[in-house]
């Protein structure tokens, strides 16, 4: 699914944000990407989304070497992934329904399909009764559910969540993590970048830890910190 082969990313010459990263994430995995701020999580996600290209090494996603990908093919790559943000990034002037439908509209889906699919996703994330609400009328947890619904509406093979619970209280955070795990159970590969120790420890999933741009730990069913 995702393969980093000897990937380094340097900004401004020799300042490495990521150095010598090798890893392999298989289809259907649930992976936490942990590390303090500045450890390289953001760069890691930017490389996945092809916002940035690696200075050295290659990244293969779904059998496509993205370091060789032409700019014109980036949209197609991004359609194979859904992204969830810490700050939700919903459009304030659109309703919940419209925010989700938007993702289908801009990828050229038929109106008929949109009308059929949006309510299904809404019920899956438990927001059927909020379809007509605006983001400002929702709690943080609810807004993030909308964000997740928007990210998965186009059936991506990979769901990337960048600090999805960073702006939420523990109760909501737990629910969001549970939702992400549900999505993973339906076959979607999920990568969650976070430094929410409690959540990581509770979930007992694969943990990849970054520190100063280096991959320092990669364990199945791991904890946020080393558990010896």
């Amino acid at each position, binding site marked *: 699914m995702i393969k980093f082969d000897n990937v380094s990313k340097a900004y401004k010459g020799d300042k490495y944000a990521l150095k010598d990263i090798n890893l392999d994430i298989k289809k259907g995995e649930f992976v936490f990407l942990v590390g303090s701020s500045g450890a390289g999580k953001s760069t890691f996600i930017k490389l996945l*989304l092809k916002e940035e290209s690696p200075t050295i090494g290659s990244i293969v996603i779904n059998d496509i070497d993205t370091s060789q990908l032409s*700019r*014109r093919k980036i*949209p*197609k*790559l*991004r*359609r194979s992934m859904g*992204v969830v943000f810490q700050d939700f*990034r919903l*459009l304030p002037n659109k309703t919940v329904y419209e925010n989700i439908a*938007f*993702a289908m*509209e*801009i*990828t*050229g889906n*038929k*109106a008929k399909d949109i009308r059929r699919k949006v309510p299904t996703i809404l019920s899956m994330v438990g927001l059927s009764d909020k379809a007509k609400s605006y983001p400002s009328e929702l709690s943080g947890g609810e807004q993030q559910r909308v964000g997740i619904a*928007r990210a998965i509406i*186009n059936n991506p093979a990979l769901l990337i969540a960048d600090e999805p619970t960073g702006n939420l209280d523990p109760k909501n955070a737990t629910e969001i993590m549970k939702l992400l795990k549900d999505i993973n159970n339906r076959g979607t590969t999920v990568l969650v970048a976070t430094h929410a120790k409690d959540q990581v420890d509770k979930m007992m999933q694969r943990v990849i830890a970054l520190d100063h741009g280096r991959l320092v730990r990669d364990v199945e069913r791991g904890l946020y910190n080393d558990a010896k």
Partner: protein
Amino acid sequence: MLNSIAYNISEGTKSLWRNRGMSIASIASVSASLFVLGIVLAIVLNINNFAIIAQKQFDNIQVFLVDEMQADDIARFKRKIENISGVSKVDFESKDMAMQKLKERWEDDAYLLDGLENPLQNSMIIELTDIRLADEVVGQIQDDAYIDSISYYKDVIDKMLTISRIISTAGLAIILLLSIVSLFIIANTIKIALYARKREINIMKYIGATNWFIRWPFIIEGMMLGFLGSAIALGAVYALYTFIFSKLGTETYSLIGGYLLPISTIFDNIAVIFASMGIGIGVLGSLVSLRRYLKV
């Protein structure tokens, strides 16, 4: 496909409305440039038209003769001119005939000429096979002692064509300048529209919208700005032209009025030029901004 055209137009219109102030400025600047273009075009087209008519109507040379010339001198002179190449016909017009013509032209006011000693001169009217030969023909006869003066319209036509050239050159310079200003204002409007939708564009990129999908609404917006500007300019030029046409068309100015092109003969051309220039400026303006500010 139809769906996405409708989407682009509706997004473009929404953005146009959201940024009313800048939209109005853009439309006004396009209108102003095209309005100037319209005036220049109207003047140049009319002068050129007049020059063509004048060339047809005045393809002759009138040679005024001194009064002392006798009948046999006149006949000899006439033969001499007839032998010059490029001359198709020579007619003698006596001063009496000239007076008669003048009276006919003045119609009701002709009585003013009664009792006046005829101030007009005998003349030869030379018709040419081609107006462009006028200078040569004049060159061959001008030294003749019997000639008082020679009047032909080539110099007048030349002068008019020169004026038309100056007007079109100056006009084009002004239009170019105004077009650049319009382009700049439209580019700025689109830049503001881009900033207003920064968040949306950012999300669209992550979801995998293609670059053109993101660009189209802005191009449509630029197009609409240009088109609306050209429509207003067209209306203004139409109104001004018909107003002037009706003023000059009245009998007082019938001399000029008769040569003016009616609006219907030039309207279609101006409309096509305006629409294509307006839309062109609009699209170009938005492309400039998209290129500079939309990193996709």
